[in-house]
């Protein structure tokens, strides 16, 4: 049976944005079924073409961080997202947060499913690992 690996993302800064993608692509590469649930401030990470920034005042240094990552051949946010989707990682937007943040389904990147807490918890209940990011 395939191991399920679930993650909940509740913040939308750059570091919190990369974590589920890096872990998700790794899990998917290892044959796990990965489900990532974005809620509250994490929801904006699922916006089409989103470019996350480092938290607080550090946001002005995002460019520097991106340059450094590029030097180490680490893919950027959008590229990493595409790789994750390509490997079958599932992305979910919290339905309630969408209403709170005034987001519409049309704002979400392609391939995102809208899900409620109960449906997600149903997935997470029998998953091997569930991680909370942010």
């Amino acid at each position, binding site marked *: 049976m395939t191991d399920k690996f679930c993650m909940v993302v509740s913040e939308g800064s750059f570091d919190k944005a990369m974590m589920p993608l890096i872990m998700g692509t*790794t899990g998917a590469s290892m044959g796990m079924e990965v489900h990532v649930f974005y809620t509250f401030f994490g929801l904006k990470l699922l916006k089409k073409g989103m470019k996350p920034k480092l938290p607080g005042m550090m946001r002005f240094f995002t460019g520097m961080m991106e340059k450094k990552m590029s030097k180490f051949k680490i893919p950027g946010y959008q590229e990493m997202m595409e790789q994750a989707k390509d490997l079958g990682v599932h992305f979910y937007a919290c339905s309630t947060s969408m209403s709170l943040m005034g987001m519409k389904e049309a704002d979400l990147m392609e391939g995102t499913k809208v899900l409620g807490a109960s449906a997600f918890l149903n997935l997470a209940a029998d998953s091997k690992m569930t991680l909370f990011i942010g």
Partner: protein
Amino acid sequence: MHGSDNTAGVDVVEKDATLDAKGLMCPMPIVQLARKIKEMKSGQILELLADDIGAKEDVPAWCSRTGNQLVGQEEDGKTFSFYIKIK
């Protein structure tokens, strides 16, 4: 037949493809490995080259978890060569 540290016998491993992941850091060698394997057939052997320090443990772990067999492993200075038989 031989343990993973034993490099004798690696010379006779016939590789069907090579994936050069040198210069990439964890988890990229594994992510690329998983994608490459999808394009190959059961029984084929993939040669994976990496110079990421994490790869030394990442690749055997990936193999054991996915059921692909690590049939050979070499270390030449900073470069690791892995020979993976596709299940």
